[in-house]
């Protein structure tokens, strides 16, 4: 077949190009623009090169909140993934009970972030909150506004309450997708409950678990409203995570150059770790 030299076909790429430009490139370039300049006002911008980046990377406050952020996301994944799988396994497979369970489990997901923070802010109070009061009545000295450990536990508990249902729902759908024939075969092969989980259910949950881990990592790594409303980042800065540090910098101090550089670093960290997770999990799939 003869090839017809005609470059007009490139126009067909235009819609995609525009879409990507407006959804990602242009907003991102604004941030890049700020991150390499010192801008005082209209017409008063000075190119500073990598200065903001160097400052951001050596800033103790940022390093501390980055460390806290990793601890928090790690804890979230370690608790929520196994717990979510467990909840999904316990949920009834079908019928009215199954539907009721689904609704009950899904409720926390429907509550706006700010409201979740507010709910727990009151719920965990030692004087008027049922949870805080109850724990204190049990003889445990609990005060999330004064004690670092208590504050951390409360933030974690809140996140587990809010987001484990997402993991559970994903796993539930994954479990429902396993054909009944596999359970029958396992029953015939006299597999134990554990063997059924380990060799039939878990391998078939893999794809939903990849999604669950990625979503929970990204979301928890970017958490802002809930701890901000609950503890305000305190006591001290013990529950101040990256987003809050960034907001303080950008909005509170109006330090746009540093905030922009920081945003880019933040973005790259999320991207890098998500990519690592994804390749690690999907790579385990390939074999002989």
């Amino acid at each position, binding site marked *: 077949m003869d090839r017809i030299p005609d470059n007009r076909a490139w126009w067909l790429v235009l819609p995609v190009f525009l879409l990507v430009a407006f959804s990602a490139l242009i907003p991102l370039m604004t941030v890049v623009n700020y991150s390499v300049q010192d801008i005082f006002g209209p017409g008063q911008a000075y190119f500073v090169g990598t200065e903001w980046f160097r400052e951001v990377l050596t800033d103790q406050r940022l390093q501390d909140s980055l460390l806290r952020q990793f601890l928090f996301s790690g804890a979230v994944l370690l608790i929520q993934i196994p717990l979510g799988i467990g909840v999904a396994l316990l949920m009834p497979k079908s019928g009215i009970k199954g539907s009721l369970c689904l609704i009950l489990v899904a409720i926390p997901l429907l509550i706006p972030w700010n409201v979740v923070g507010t709910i727990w802010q009151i719920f965990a109070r030692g004087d008027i909150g049922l949870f805080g009061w109850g724990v204190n009545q049990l003889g445990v000295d609990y005060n999330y506004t004064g004690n670092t450990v208590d504050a951390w536990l409360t933030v974690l508990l809140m996140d587990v309450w809010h987001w484990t249902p997402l993991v559970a729902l994903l796993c539930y759908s994954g479990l429902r997708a396993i054909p009944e024939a596999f359970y029958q075969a396992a029953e*015939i*092969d006299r597999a134990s409950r554990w063997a059924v989980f380990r060799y039939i259910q878990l391998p078939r949950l893999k794809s939903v678990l990849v999604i669950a881990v990625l979503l929970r990592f990204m979301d928890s790594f970017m958490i802002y409203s809930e701890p901000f409303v609950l503890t305000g980042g305190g006591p001290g800065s013990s529950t101040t995570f990256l987003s809050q540090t960034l907001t303080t910098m950008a909005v509170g101090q109006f330090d746009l150059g540093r905030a922009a550089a920081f945003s880019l670093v933040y973005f790259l960290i999320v991207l890098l770790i998500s990519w690592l997770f994804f390749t690690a999990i999907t790579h385990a799939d390939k074999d002989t």
Partner: protein
Amino acid sequence: MAEIQLKSLAHSYSESPAGPEDYAIRQLDHVWHKGGAYALLGPSGCGKSTMLNIISGLVQPSEGEVLFDGQRVNELSPRERNIAQVFQFPVVYDSMTVFENLAFPLKNNKVPGARIQTRVAEIAEILEIADKLHKKARNLTADEKQKVSMGRGLVREDVTAILFDEPLTVIDPALKWKLRRKLKQIHEQFDITMVYVTHDQLEASTFADKIAVMYDGQIVQFGTPIELFEHPNHTFVGYFIGSPGMNLIDVERSADGVSFGAVRVALQEWQIERLQGLASNNIKIGIRPEFIELASGAAEGSYQAEVLDMEDLGTYKIITVRLGTQQLQVRMHEDFEAGIGSRVHLSFPPQWTMLYVDEFLVQEQS
């Protein structure tokens, strides 16, 4: 190993069955003897798989009992019944290798490691998948998966019985034949009760010593392939076994036998006697295409028929003829020649002319 007895078994998938049509299995009594190789033959949807699942315990029968060696096992799970079952659609554990798949039932039964090695190697050898043992099961082809699925059923040595639910569906014919021979060998070697569900009569008769033909939730005949062929107990067996199936003709009572249209069919003495004792008017005669004889001329007891069609199947011919109001199929030697529309003379040997009342065979009283 055990004798499996089904006692007035019935099963319905509906919660409140209204009538017999809601039942997948209707009032069924049957015994699978210890160490036999049986086939359960029937069309799709006749209740074969249901019966298999009831024996293995995956399905609880709505009525009746399942007995292993005389012990009621209705309440026992498949695990406790210790039954192996191979499913129609191959189930392989795809995160495991072929070896791990085959070893899985043994591991669950706490068989020692060394024994697992030898046993898996043995089964893999028989099924010709020894070179694939270390492949992940998900990368296998459809027929390899079916072999693995079958291997898991065969690998346990202590099972009560092995049930096969159309286990060779996706395997190509040449290999199918080979695997059936293998199964037969395994049966002879280990003497395990085997029940093989199929809708293919050839498959049933090459595998089994005795075949149970199932129709509409009931076992209508249980016998050797020859019995099923020569004396079908039910019109369905006649129709289903043989290729083409038995010629079945609706007939009416006449003075000394039965007739259809102007054609009078001669019966044997005892058949006429027994027919007189039965009230029903649902009467059929059945004769296999193989048993209809070609008469040389208009002799006594022969009928003139018109040739409508002729199919040459290589080693024999099937001709379709019109006799009175009926169309019949006749199996002829491959040398037989007759033009379409020509006349032939046929006769029905009395010993091969079966009489059916209400679809069941009228048998000679002994």
